[in-house]
C-alpha cells in the first residue's frame, strides 16, 4: 500500500496565504511559496493550494503561483479554485502543478470530471467536496453538498452519492471537507470520512477540523482516509510537519 500522506493546505487569496475559521475571519499567514518550501523541507508529502477567491480574480495569479511553486518545491502539489475547463487545468499543469482540484465547476457540469480525466489522466483530477450534516436526518446520517466556501447548499446532491459519482466519472481522488468541523479544531467528521472512504474505490483526503496531532491519526485509523489535510495548525507554528509525522508514526501509521 502507498504510504499514508500528510498534506498541508494553503488557502490563497490574491497570492497570499489565509485560513478562515468556518471560512470567515481570515488571517494572513504569509507567502505561499515560502511556506510551501518550508513544508517540503519539513517532510510534507504533498501540498494543496486552494485559491479561495479564484472565481473573482485574475486567472494569471494562480498560474503564477503554480509556476513559482514548481521553481522551489519538489513534492507533488494540487491547485484548486476557479478551475472550470480543460484550458484552465492545462494552464496550471503546464506551470508545474501535478493535480487540479475542482469543486463547484464539477457540480455545475459533472462532465468536466471525465473531460479532465481523458486529457490528463485520473491521477490529475481531485474532486473537492464540501459537506455538511443534514440536520435531524431520519434514517442514519446524511450530508449535504455546499459550494461557495460553504455558503450555498447544492439542491439534490448528497455528499456520499456525489463522491461515488465523481469516482465513476474519472476522479482520481476525493478531497472531503466537513463544513461542520472546518475551523472548529474538534477533529475530522470521522463518520463522514468513513462513509465516503467506504463507498469509493479511490483515495480520500480527510479535511476540516484538525486541532491536535491526534486528530491526524484518527482520520486515517478511524476515518479510513488515505491522506489527511490540515492548515492552521501548521501555519501559526503551533506544530511542525515533523511533529505531525512523528505522531502519525507513533500511532502505527506507515508514513514517509
Amino acid at each position, binding site marked *: 500500500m502507498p504510504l499514508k500522506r500528510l498534506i498541508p493546505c494553503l488557502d490563497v487569496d490574491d497570492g497570499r496565504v489565509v485560513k478562515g475559521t468556518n471560512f470567515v475571519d481570515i488571517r494572513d499567514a504569509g507567502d505561499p511559496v515560502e511556506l510551501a518550501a518550508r513544508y517540503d523541507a519539513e517532510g510534507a508529502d504533498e501540498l494543496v493550494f486552494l485559491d479561495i477567491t479564484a472565481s473573482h480574480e485574475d486567472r494569471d495569479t494562480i498560474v503564477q503561483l503554480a509556476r513559482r511553486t514548481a521553481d522551489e518545491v519538489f*513534492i507533488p502539489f494540487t491547485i484548486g479554485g476557479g478551475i472550470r475547463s480543460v484550458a484552465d487545468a492545462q494552464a496550471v499543469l503546464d506551470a508545474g502543478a501535478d493535480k487540479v482540484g475542482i469543486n463547484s465547476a464539477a457540480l455545475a457540469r459533472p462532465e468536466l470530471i471525465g473531460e479532465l480525466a481523458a486529457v490528463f489522466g485520473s491521477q490529475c483530477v481531485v474532486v473537492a467536496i464540501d459537506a455538511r450534516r443534514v440536520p435531524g436526518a431520519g434514517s442514519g446520517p446524511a450530508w449535504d453538498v455546499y459550494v461557495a466556501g460553504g455558503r450555498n447548499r447544492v439542491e439534490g446532491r448528497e455528499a456520499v452519492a456525489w463522491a461515488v459519482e465523481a469516482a465513476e466519472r474519472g476522479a482520481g481522488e476525493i478531497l472531503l471537507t466537513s463544513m461542520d468541523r472546518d475551523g472548529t479544531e474538534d477533529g475530522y467528521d470521522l463518520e463522514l470520512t468513513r462513509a465516503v472512504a467506504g463507498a469509493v474505490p479511490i483515495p480520500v483526503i480527510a479535511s476540516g477540523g484538525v486541532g491536535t496531532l491526534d486528530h491526524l491519526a484518527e482520520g486515517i485509523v478511524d476515518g479510513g482516509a488515505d491522506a489527511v489535510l490540515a492548515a492552521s495548525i501548521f501555519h501559526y507554528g503551533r506544530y511542525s510537519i515533523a511533529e505531525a509525522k512523528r505522531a502519525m508514526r507513533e500511532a502505527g501509521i506507515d508514513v*514517509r
Partner: protein
Amino acid sequence: MSVSPPELKIADYGMGNLRSVAKAFEHVGVAATVSSDPGELAGASALVLPGVGAFPEAMREIERRGIGEPIRERAAAGVPVLGICLGMQLLFESSAEHGGAEGLSLLPGTVAPLAAPGLKLPHIGWAHLGIERESELTAGIADGEPFYFVHSLAARPLDTDVIATADYGERFAAVVGRENVFGTQFHPEKSSAAGLRMLANFAALATAPAAA
C-alpha cells in the same frame, strides 16, 4: 582536470511535466534545457526522458519529431541517459500498454501492467525503495527511502539491470541501470530531497571524466 559544463538536455516529446524536471536540475545547480530538436539532442552530454502519459502515443511522438535516432545514438556513444516514469518504460523493447508498441530498446525487457490484485491502479503515492545493488545513481540514498510514484505498468528488466525495487502488490523494478542508461519508475523531481539527490547523482555522471 577541468571539464566543460554538461549539456544536459530534457527530451520534449509532448508528454508530461518537463518544467518540473528542468527546475529540479536547476535546484541542484545543473543547467538543463528542454528540447525537441534532433540536432540539439544529438549534442547532449546527458539526456533525460521525462514523461507522463501513454507509451504508444509517446513513441509515435518521438518518431514523428525525429528524436528517436539522436536518443539511440547518444546512448550508444556512452552519454548518460535517464528515463523517468514513462521515460523509463520507453527505454525497453516494448510495452503492453493500449494494444502494445515497440520501445527504444536501449534496455532488454518489456513493460507490463502491475500485478496488484485488489489494489487501486494507478499506483499513486510514496513507496519505500529497496536497494538491490550499488550504483552511482543511488549514492547517498538510504535503503528504504521513500519516493513518489504514479504508474499502472512496470518494466520487466533483466535481474542484473535492477538497481532498486519497490512494492505494490508485487516487487517491481523502481530503478534500473545498465552501463550509461538508467531509469526510475518514480518521479525524482517530485520526491523531495532524496529525489534531488538522485538527479544530482545523475548529472555528476555527465561531468565525471570518463574512466580510463
